[in-house]
């Protein structure tokens, strides 16, 4: 009993240490940046500085122009993640089910995966319309193909003998999927969704750079056009914080699911 308590304490200590290191790194970087800008070693007009970013943040905050921009981007990103992940996983399930379809579609999927979706973003926005629909389409197009490919590879890598065990009970293909293939890959699917967070953000920002009238991408583009680098950097920072928070939420969700299924104690 004593032993487990001790190891818990040590673990906790190690975690706190880790966070301290991470915060030191972050604030060290910001401090260095601020100092270099302060002593004019780097040009604040081109490189901006943490204090300038903070000032413009307050200015936008007081003008009530932060949260509506964040909200629209977050909304588009979440839509992209949900549509792309669910669509991709569904498609991968169909591929797992039908070997013929997989063999027919394999070269097309590989080509689609290699295509520069970002270069096609303007066309997609023309197809789906400028606005949320176009932007979400760009996000989905960036993440769906890789979601299909990686999910399919997870599905088809399930241990052959486990399938044989189910077959020895006379399981149908559908039962193999619902009893084994899907539930055994919950952890992997969570990883896919985590990766999709970043991809969806890329799609949304590209879409917003092209057409939008609001959103973090819009702030970044607007800042670039009027050569206000503080605004660009503020957009990048907000982006980082949002992506980080989403990652944390999915990560916690995953842990809750794993705990509920009793895989870890």
């Amino acid at each position, binding site marked *: 009993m004593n032993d487990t308590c001790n190891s818990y304490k040590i673990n906790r200590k190690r975690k706190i240490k880790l966070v301290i290191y991470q915060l030191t790194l972050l604030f060290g970087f910001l401090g260095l940046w601020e100092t270099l800008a302060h002593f004019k070693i780097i040009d604040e007009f081109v490189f901006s500085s943490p204090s300038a970013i903070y000032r413009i943040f307050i200015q936008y905050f007081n003008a009530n122009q932060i949260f509506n921009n964040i909200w629209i981007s977050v909304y588009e990103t979440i839509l992209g993640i949900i549509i792309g992940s669910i669509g991709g996983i569904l498609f991968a399930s169909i591929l797992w089910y039908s070997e013929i379809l997989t063999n027919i579609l394999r070269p097309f999927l590989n080509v689609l995966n290699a295509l520069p979706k970002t270069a096609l973003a303007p066309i997609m926005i023309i197809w789906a319309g400028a606005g949320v629909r176009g932007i979400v389409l760009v996000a989905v197009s960036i993440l769906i193909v890789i979601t299909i490919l990686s999910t399919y590879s997870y599905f088809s890598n399930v*241990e052959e*003998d*486990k399938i*044989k*065990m*189910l077959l*020895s*009970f*006379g*399981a149908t293909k559908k*039962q193999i999927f619902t*009893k*084994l293939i899907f*539930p*055994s890959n*919950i952890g992997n699917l969570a990883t896919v969704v985590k990766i999709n967070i970043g991809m969806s953000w890329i799609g949304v920002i590209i879409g917003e750079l092209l057409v939008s009238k609001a959103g973090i991408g819009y702030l970044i583009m607007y800042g670039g056009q009027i050569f206000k680098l503080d605004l660009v950097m503020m957009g990048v920072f907000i982006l980082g914080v949002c992506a980080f928070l989403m990652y944390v939420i999915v990560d916690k969700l995953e842990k809750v699911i794993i705990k509920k*299924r*009793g*895989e*870890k*104690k």
Partner: protein
Amino acid sequence: MKVLEFDHVDMDFCSKNKQLKVLDDISFSVEEGEILAITGPSGAGKSTILNLISHLLLPSRGNVSVNGNIGYMFQKDHLFEWKTIYKNILLGLEIQNNVTEENLQAVDRMLKLYGLADFRDNHPKELSGGMRQRVALIRTLAVNPAILLLDEPFASLDYQTKLNVSEDIYKIIRNENKTTIIVSHDISEAIAFADRVMILSERPARIKEIIDIRIDAPTPIKKRQIKVFQVYFEHIWGVLNSE
């Protein structure tokens, strides 16, 4: 009553336009409640025989008749980590859409009898290797198979665990009076476990000999301690290595 019969069975496989003969004129039968061990050099076709029994393959010539359904137990327990022990055991019944009051009672009886009742709501991770193997056996027995096929069931365990698990599994099989075919490359395991040992030759596999094992002891570990055990071992060793 004969539960299983092989009648002059040949099995050929095709590889790169070449015909490969794997089984050559295999004939044997298994009586109800009997335990038959199949042993032989690796690659001889032991698994092919199991696949023929479970109808995953059809014989090239000859006839395989099986009287009743089959339960398969593998080298690994293949328990699903995300399901509780109880849910794991119900897997076969769920697949066969056969979760009846009667079958659930049978499962409860086995859980109690074989020392797993206290673990029914635990997850496989929390069980020892031996207990996991017992769970896997009960999962197979839950669908009430007429014949139990054990494919190298203890091969992945360390020696001491292997003896203990083999003892456990043997007791359960005898207690449930299950007709069993066990494939093992381990001669002493075959002698300790089975009523008869069938020795196969190198490929193409023929039956070299089927030996009745008569050791007057109740369980595998006890059998290993009786002198005649060594006699059987030497005999089978001789047959395996003879041309």
